[in-house]
């Protein structure tokens, strides 16, 4: 078996799978059950001045038969007093000394507030702290969460205040509700963060009931924006992780979060620079035991690649992620249709004819039967036909021979030098 243990900025855990700060980590009962199931770590549901919640808190989008393709919540941080949470953290850490417990924290942007909560939380033996600068709903209206996380100077200052008092590693959790997450990531690093985590949830309104005209969810006929997460946000999160991982000024480990539902998703985040991952929606959908498949799948994957430790995977795909201007303009792929597999549904032809480059023809063969054929010379390799095709293996994108590589940046440099 490969070594699945990680060391994220000094926080050690037996595997890279942590539960994210959220409803699944609300109590000692839950976190202990999670550790029993195999989770390597847990970020305790955010601690701060205990809040009041509303009823009717979650909503989900089901898409084409997939339940919970996206998930939305308007639940706030913990509604339990700090001493109750601390007692349970202490008991949990005592029972599971080798598992990572990270305390998520959120207080007003005041130095003394941060110092107080850091000291009280570290006294019960947490392995690290995660500063919640990301929650987009409710707390943000009070100047905390994403309201803090959207202002680089506030991210830097509050991180600095925490580092003044902290003895354990400090992870700064970033909001995606910002144009360029690398700006706030850099602010966290400048403030002394030992690691960053991303993404928190995205501002969202899940829907409107066509009969009642109420928002989904609604609280007695009124709604407010929530935080969106789950499989639908994975591409957004993966890009943000990758953008930070390839930024030389962001030199701290990354804890990847956002729609991670299985071991394959986790490997993608790790390849793109995450030193570990956090999961919430998938656990809320399927329960804590999904971690068993995650551990087994990751272990088999590493074995299949002859890799002895998951840490060797970290960031392996980062050099392959760049700016558009560095992509090869001469790289050329074209679609090929396997008529032995194709069911002649015509979806590729319609998609190409209506919305792409009009290069798939329906041809009548000598035997009178119709078949679809790509005019390769007109195909730009957009992939749309393969994307809409309902039959696996019917359409393959094939690399063509091309000229020497030339990027847009190289081209423009050459043209500009001729002026």
């Amino acid at each position: 078996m490969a070594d699945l243990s990680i060391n994220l900025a000094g926080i050690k855990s037996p595997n890279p799978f942590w539960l994210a700060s959220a409803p699944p980590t609300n109590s000692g009962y839950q976190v202990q059950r999670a550790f029993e199931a195999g989770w390597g770590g847990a970020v305790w549901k955010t601690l701060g001045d205990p809040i009041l919640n509303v009823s009717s808190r979650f909503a989900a989008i089901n898409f084409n038969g997939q339940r919970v393709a996206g998930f939305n919540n308007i639940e706030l941080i913990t509604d339990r007093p700090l001493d109750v949470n601390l007692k349970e953290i202490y008991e949990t850490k005592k029972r599971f000394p080798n598992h990572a417990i990270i305390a998520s924290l959120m207080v007003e942007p005041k130095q003394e507030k941060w110092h107080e909560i850091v000291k009280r939380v570290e006294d019960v033996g947490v392995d690290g702290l995660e500063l919640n600068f990301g929650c987009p709903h409710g707390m943000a209206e009070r100047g905390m969460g994403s309201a803090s996380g959207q202002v680089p100077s506030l991210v830097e200052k509050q991180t600095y205040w925490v580092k003044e008092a902290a003895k354990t590693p400090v992870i700064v959790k970033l909001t995606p509700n910002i144009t360029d997450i690398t700006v706030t990531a850099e602010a966290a690093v400048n403030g002394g963060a030992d690691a960053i985590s991303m993404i928190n949830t995205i501002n969202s309104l899940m829907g409107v009931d066509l009969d009642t005209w109420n928002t989904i969810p609604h609280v007695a006929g009124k709604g407010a924006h929530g935080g969106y997460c789950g499989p639908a946000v994975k591409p957004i999160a993966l890009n943000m992780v990758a953008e930070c991982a390839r930024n030389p000024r962001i030199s701290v480990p990354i804890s990847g979060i956002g729609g991670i539902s299985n071991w394959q998703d986790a490997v993608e985040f790790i390849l793109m620079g995450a030193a570990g991952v956090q999961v919430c929606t998938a656990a809320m959908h399927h329960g804590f035991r999904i971690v068993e498949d995650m551990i087994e799948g990751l272990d088999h994957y590493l074995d299949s690649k002859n890799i002895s430790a998951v840490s060797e995977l970290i960031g392996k795909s980062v050099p392959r992620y760049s700016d558009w201007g560095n992509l090869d303009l001469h790289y050329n792929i074209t679609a090929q249709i396997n008529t032995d597999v194709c069911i002649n549904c015509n979806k590729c032809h319609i998609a190409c004819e209506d919305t792409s480059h009009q290069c798939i023809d329906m041809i009548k063969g000598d035997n009178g039967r119709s078949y679809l054929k790509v005019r390769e010379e007109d195909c730009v390799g957009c992939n749309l036909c393969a994307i809409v095709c309902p039959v696996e293996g019917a359409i393959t994108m094939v690399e063509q021979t091309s000229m020497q590589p030339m990027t847009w940046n190289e081209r423009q440099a050459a043209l500009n030098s001729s002026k």
Partner: protein
Amino acid sequence: MSEHEQYLAEKEKIDQLLSEGYNIYHAVENLDGAFVEFFHLKSGTKKTLHIRTANARKYFSSIFIQQKSS
């Protein structure tokens, strides 16, 4: 004429000038495509091609980069 045929026609014009000993020495790009200026070193003659298709604009750029590097 398909876009591919337009590309082949433009490529042919570029290749023709290159075979006649012209080199690309300048290109101006605007909303209408690229105006590529060729120069014949021996005769001192200049010629300009209006290149419209994307593939031909990639093509002359690669030729230009090759010429500069050699």
